[in-house]
């Protein structure tokens, strides 16, 4: 997909004005958070689980080289093959190379954020290979020619009527809004394709270093079909997916479904250790695991931001975020939206290409509370804001697409320092503060409408470029106090005693 992270402001404004999107989001997100909260509440040891998961991920990150080596050795000992991709381009080349060497024309795909990250589908198509998404939500957005808008619910932005239109238009089936009907259409269409495909492609939720096992969570069954029917199974995973042992797996297996969909476990969890054994009935003859760096080691090199590598991609912070709840995923401009996306996107694409994202947060902390592995996302956003304010933009290493870096960043920093110094002078003087308040009121009242200021002329328009500003009261509190409360009493409350 195109990287549109630099157009966040325009995209956000468009999302807010998009009535069907607002309806779909309101409907879909209303329950998501409470369901997850109820699932967490069932575990009296939820906080203990979070702490253990955090400690375990810390352990993995601190020894990532060691664990990756162990994982790769185990996969190979079980008859699998391990590939290492430093960049998205290398990962695409590895996957396409595997497919073309075996004459694969059709690839069935399990839902995989890593696949979106490396933008695999267009590359497959360019190589004459047809990719088909097996997950219902991914299948819907693929038919619509759109990127997914949520980590775990890719078609969250579409209402059933829009999906019915889409199936009618693209698949030529009768137009029917009944979701049961829509599910059956997808099932029937996809079943045949699973049998035909020469390659099954999946991501992985976790990778167990001790046993070389990849772990796949899903509810539909399509991922296991993709990992079973075609004779070649390729799994792409970020190098941060490692957990040390099966015992550690239990911790994250409890957290991920609860935080993500409020389930105790997903309907299916598959632990895959190597290709089919000679005496087994089915399964692929070949298993290839592709380990993807693509900016993760760069993130690792930042001792503060590396905390984000703990992320298990559950989407809980998205559902909790007041900004995401208003915008949906597409406005963020890349595959990782919401609070954690605002941390990971600049880290993976380069801060200069996503400089607005760390600012798309109220720092309210709802994401931190929701995060099952206790990533302090607001702290990371502040860290990135600091980096963006202080550092000249660095060129992104291997970023897909091509967007110009934000110019004038150093100048912006200087202006900001001046503005803060100016504000500090005003705030220190009651007289100046009073005066500026009066000026602002006199200035804002004429340009307001129905209690809101929607537009302020430059250079004071930073706020209203993408937000409305509530009109201040006609009278300041100090003035009101003087006129009303001040009459019968002393000239004001005495705070000094």
């Amino acid at each position, binding site marked *: 997909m195109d990287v549109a992270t630099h157009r966040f402001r325009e995209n956000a404004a468009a999302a807010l004005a998009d009535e069907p999107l607002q309806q779909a989001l309101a409907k879909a997100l209303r329950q998501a958070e409470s369901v997850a909260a109820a699932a967490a509440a069932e575990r009296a040891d939820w906080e203990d689980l979070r702490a253990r998961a955090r400690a375990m991920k810390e352990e993995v990150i601190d020894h990532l080289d060691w664990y990756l080596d162990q994982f790769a050795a185990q996969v190979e000992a079980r008859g699998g093959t391990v590939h290492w991709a430093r960049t998205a381009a290398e990962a695409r080349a590895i996957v396409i190379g595997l497919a073309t060497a075996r004459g694969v024309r059709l690839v069935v795909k399990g839902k995989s954020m890593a696949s979106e990250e490396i933008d695999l589908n267009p590359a497959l198509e360019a190589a004459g290979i047809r990719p088909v998404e097996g997950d219902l939500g991914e299948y819907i957005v693929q038919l619509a020619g759109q990127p997914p808008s949520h980590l775990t619910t890719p078609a969250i932005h579409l209402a059933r009527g829009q999906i019915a239109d889409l199936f009618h238009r693209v698949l030529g089936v009768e137009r029917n809004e009944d979701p049961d009907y829509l599910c059956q259409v997808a099932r029937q269409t996809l079943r045949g394709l699973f049998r035909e495909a020469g390659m099954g492609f999946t991501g992985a939720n976790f990778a167990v270093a*001790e046993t070389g096992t990849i772990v796949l969570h899903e509810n539909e069954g399509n991922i296991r079909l993709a990992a*079973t029917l075609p004779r070649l199974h390729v799994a792409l995973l970020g190098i941060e997916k490692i957990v040390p042992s099966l015992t550690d797996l239990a911790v994250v297996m409890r957290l991920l479904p609860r935080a993500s969909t409020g389930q105790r476990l997903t*309907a299916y969890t598959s632990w895959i*250790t190597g290709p089919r054994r000679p005496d087994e009935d089915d399964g692929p003859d070949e298993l290839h695991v592709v380990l993807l760096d693509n900016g993760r080691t760069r993130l690792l090199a930042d001792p503060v931001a590396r905390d984000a590598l703990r992320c298990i991609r559950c989407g809980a912070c998205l559902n909790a975020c007041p900004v995401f709840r208003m915008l949906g995923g597409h406005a963020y401009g890349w595959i990782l939206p919401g609070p954690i996306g605002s941390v990971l996107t600049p880290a993976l694409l380069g801060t200069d290409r996503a400089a607005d994202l760390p600012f798309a947060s109220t720092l309210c902390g709802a994401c931190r509370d929701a995060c099952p592995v206790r990533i302090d996302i607001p702290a990371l956003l502040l860290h990135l804001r600091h980096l963006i304010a202080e550092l000249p933009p660095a060129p992104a290493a291997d970023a897909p697409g091509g967007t110009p870096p934000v110019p004038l960043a150093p100048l912006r920093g200087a202006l900001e320092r001046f503005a803060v110094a100016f504000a500090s002078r005003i705030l220190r003087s009651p007289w100046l503060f009073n005066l500026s308040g009066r000026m602002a009121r006199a200035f804002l009242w004429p340009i307001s409408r129905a209690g809101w200021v929607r537009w302020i002329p430059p250079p004071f328009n930073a706020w209203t470029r993408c937000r409305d500003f509530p009109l201040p009261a006609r009278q300041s509190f100090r003035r009101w106090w003087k006129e009303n409360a001040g009459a019968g009493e002393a000239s004001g409350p005495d705070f000094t005693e």
Partner: protein
Amino acid sequence: MDNRRAILDAIRAALKDPRPQALVPHRERPRPPAPALAKGLDRFREVFAELQGQYAEARSAAEVGAALERLVSTRGLRRVFATDTPRLARMNVRETLRRLGVFCASPYRPDEAGAHPRPADLDALVTGADLVIAESGTLVHVAKPGEGRMTTLTAPLHVVLFTADQVVDTLEEAIARLGPAVASGERSCVTLISGPSRTADIEKQLFIGVHGPGALHALRVG
């Protein structure tokens, strides 16, 4: 191979300053056992019902036969495949299905007569479970000769036979029991099945039976 070294070197460089922990991981982290929820079979029944699974009990091969017969007649099943693990064989599952005239050959391997129905033609499927996890209402299936990875996804109705001694309370206990088969590399796929195939991809509304079975029956025998 160069890429492998490049990535591992990049990791080592990133972690070098300062390397936060010892070079070799500490294997002895404290792992407090997770407190168990309500125990055993009762908990399984409760959670399995929440997941929209159907639960039943049978004390003998005859009762298993009666339960299967009821299913076949109420649901109008015509083609049912049953795997041939020792537990199912003891319960005469295949004999019952043959007697009812609904047994069909394995869709995975041509049988003695060379028959090989397409999995899509099956109405139902009977298998065993390798373990049952009470706290999450989970049926564990290990791919093995005669019961492949695909087996449990094939038909719209999946009937699973298990015995009470296969029930463990927690995921941790299940992992302790399954770990050796995974670690030794004996089996390529373990699947934890918690309820029928489902999706909430359309307007976050729940729908059952997307790619896998829409009906899941657990039958405790013995």
